[in-house]
């Protein structure tokens, strides 16, 4: 299976490790990630203004590129996934936006139209729905037996659930199932879907630290030894509070380790 792949800016800079391991594992698991040509920054935040259009165009361009190839589009970064998924939903449902966006697109060098045809998938959804966690478990060479791993979801993947359609927003299980598939023991803790502070860390550092520390404390109290996340921003905020006692890594790092792909 071949998918269009939208890495996003952070995966080219701070989160290279999230990107690299994902690509390595995809090959082993039997699917191919074809990077979208000339993709642009998704804007990182889904614009809430109803008449906001400029910051939605990069997502539309990427979504359209995938639809040209008749491929689903895959993302890894929670923020990119969130923006692409919601903009795509808008392009399906919101007729006014459709018209305005397509008026813009008619001005491009090669004019085209887009109406939300592309399926937006997160890498984890491919593992769950296309590969299947049972099949993934069968391919694990180096099971992470005995490792106590806390899944940290953050907000972007789960909410708003009616659009994201990712998992139960209050009681998600996809990351726990993933942890089981790679042979480790999931640690369920109540704060696993709480906000890490997100971009507030740029403005009010102390507040973000307080929020992420709460999550770390809660995970530690339930016995987690490491947290996994899909989100570079979550990782950025989580790394600081209790990096010594509770490291946070990307889920693809542990996936690569379990599949025996970890470079020494």
């Amino acid at each position: 299976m071949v998918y269009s792949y939208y890495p996003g800016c952070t995966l080219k800079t701070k989160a290279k490790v999230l990107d690299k391991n994902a690509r390595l594992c995809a090959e082993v698991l039997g699917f191919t990630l074809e990077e979208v040509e000339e993709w642009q920054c998704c804007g990182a935040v889904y614009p809430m203004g109803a008449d906001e259009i400029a910051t939605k165009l990069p997502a539309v361009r990427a979504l359209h590129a995938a639809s040209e190839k008749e491929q689903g589009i895959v993302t890894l970064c929670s923020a990119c996934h969130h923006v692409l998924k919601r903009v795509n939903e808008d392009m399906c449902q919101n007729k006014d936006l459709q018209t305005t966006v397509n008026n813009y697109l008619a001005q491009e060098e090669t004019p085209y139209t887009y109406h939300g045809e592309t399926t937006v998938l997160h890498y984890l959804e491919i593992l769950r729905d296309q590969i299947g966690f049972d099949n993934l478990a069968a391919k694990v060479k180096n099971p992470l037996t005995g490792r106590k791993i806390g899944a940290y979801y953050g907000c972007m993947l789960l909410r708003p659930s009616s659009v994201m359609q990712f998992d139960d927003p209050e009681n998600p299980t996809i990351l726990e199932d993933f942890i089981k598939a790679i042979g480790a023991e999931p640690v369920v803790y109540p704060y696993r879907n709480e906000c890490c502070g997100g971009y507030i860390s740029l403005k009010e550092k102390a507040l973000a630290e307080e929020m992420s520390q709460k999550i770390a404390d809660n995970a530690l109290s339930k016995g987690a030894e490491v947290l996994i996340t899909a989100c570079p921003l979550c990782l950025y905020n989580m790394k600081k509070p209790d990096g010594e006692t509770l490291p946070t890594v990307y889920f693809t790092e542990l996936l690569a380790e379990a599949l025996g792909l970890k470079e020494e």
Partner: protein
Amino acid sequence: MQRIGVFVCHCGTNIAGTVDVDEIVKMVKPEQGVVHAADYPYMCSEAGQSMIINAVKAHNLSGVVICSCSPRMHETTFRKAADKAGLNPYMVEIANIREHCSWIHKDKAEATQKALILTRAAIAKAQLNSPLFPDESPVTKRALVIGGGIAGIQTALDIADAGFEVDIVESTPSIGGKMAQLDKTFPTLDCAACILTPKMVDASAHENITLYTYSQVDKVEGFVGDFTVTIRQKARSVDFDKCTGCGVCSEKCPSKKSPSEFDQGLCTRPAIYTPFAQAVPNVPVIDREACLKFKTGKCGLCETVCAPKAINFEQEDELVARKYGAVIMATGYEPVALDKFGEYSYSDSPDVITSLEFERLTNAAGPTGGDLIRLSDKRKPKSVTFIQCVGSRDVTQRGKAYCSKICCMYTAKHAMLIKEKYPDTEVNVFYIDVRTPGKAFDEFYRRAESEYGVRYIKGQVGKVIDNGDHLQIQAVDMLDNKKMDMKTDMVVLATAIEPVKSAKSIATMLTASIDTNNFMTEAHPKLRPVESPTAGVFLSGVCQGPKDIPETVAQAGAAASKVIGLLVKDKLMSNPCTAKPDALYCNGCSICENVCPYGAISYEDCEVNDHGVREVWHVAQVNKALCQGCGACVVTCPSGAMDLQGFSNRQIQAEVDAICR
């Protein structure tokens, strides 16, 4: 050729203000078949009706067209007037020039033109009217109440007191329903059991009432006045006539691990049990899934200790078929499942409970003898937090869009009960809005706040976390516009209520309609609130919509009075505007049978004379007593064999032609 009279009503200025009434009278006079036309300020008045009656006689009219308000308003009035004049009532046609014309238009010329067109259509239809005669059907003077909660009990008592026989079918081993589980009742705080149990005993002792407990409705046939209902009496494994209700069997039963349904699973009960001490009837049942005798073949201790020899392991379900004139739905409600509400940690923490569980916990006859304790460590909570609207007023897929109506009041009651018993306890209530319309209701809620010091916080709770020795709550105080992070010892969820699961299947058996939330639909939301659109089916209690005890009892009585009104009749006159199949056109496809919402159509062998050839065909038959004249079969029939009397295809066509002329 008909001799038609047209009567145009002014309705004061309601019609005449927008429609030129004189113009209508002038314009319809030359219409084919019209021999008389007149107008009058209030056609529905005594004088207006006399005018019609006199005109029918004077001009020897065979049909009447009234240009007035909606037929829903005064069709019956004018039909009666026609009857007095010696005209068949179904020769009256109404042109609705008020709701469909004068009320919704401003331009007088345009409105007059439209009124004229509507009148012409009615004249065209009246041309093709033929006299119709209602049928008579007998009435079985016995009623069936489905559900034995306070709604069903009250309805049954009222009907029985009027001298008619009533049967109550109740699915659990005892009547009493949800009210029997409650502690105190708002707004007077009388004890629920004290006011309910006498009624339960009355119902059981009444000579006109028969109880079918631990029973369910299996099949419904027939129609208003003549239902045949099959009731399944589930095997109790205890002989009803021999049991004295001494309770020794339950005491000695070694299998005591089943969660008690009556106590909301907060404690256990034996395999042979009566749900609660005041159960009516006081005859236990054996839960065959829990009973060792049924599971392993060993035991049988209850049989040994039962002095009157009432235990009967061989007993089987019994089917009883009875005839009824009316059926009353009183199936009630249950709290919604909370598995989709993970943020409240209901399934993770024993200290997060529902309001119904709280009722049992605070009830002196409950599992703790009325002591309010945390179920995790048996400690008295120092602070209790109530969360309202859990699943109510929730427009997402997991919740119910409606207000459950009773929660604001019972939460205020719960808060007061705690403060009364343990004044030192801190009590918080999270709410969206506090809704307390009802006699002495708002005063009650304000007492909770001002006299008892219950803290009301406007805002919703985002998360409840069980931290072992306490619960952590994340919430928003909307009036303060602040995020809250607070500790509490116990959380009580005011869970939304929904109709019981079986309501839908019972409604289907009765061919009675339900709404998208599975509440029973009324015949008219304002004017016929206790009747189902299906004739002979009546609604009592929460099966129709959320309501509290006073309202339920009032509605139960209203339903009973409607039932009594039906049962006192010896014969029922049916509406003759029913579907009529033409056997010669029917191709036996059965599409009409499938679309009929009332189960009025069946297929039977019928001898037909096809151009001199006599043959037996399998064709549609309409049961006129069941048919409500909706016309679904008429429009679905591919061969045009079905027609609606009084609204025939030819008549509708004639109306359309007149409009398009």
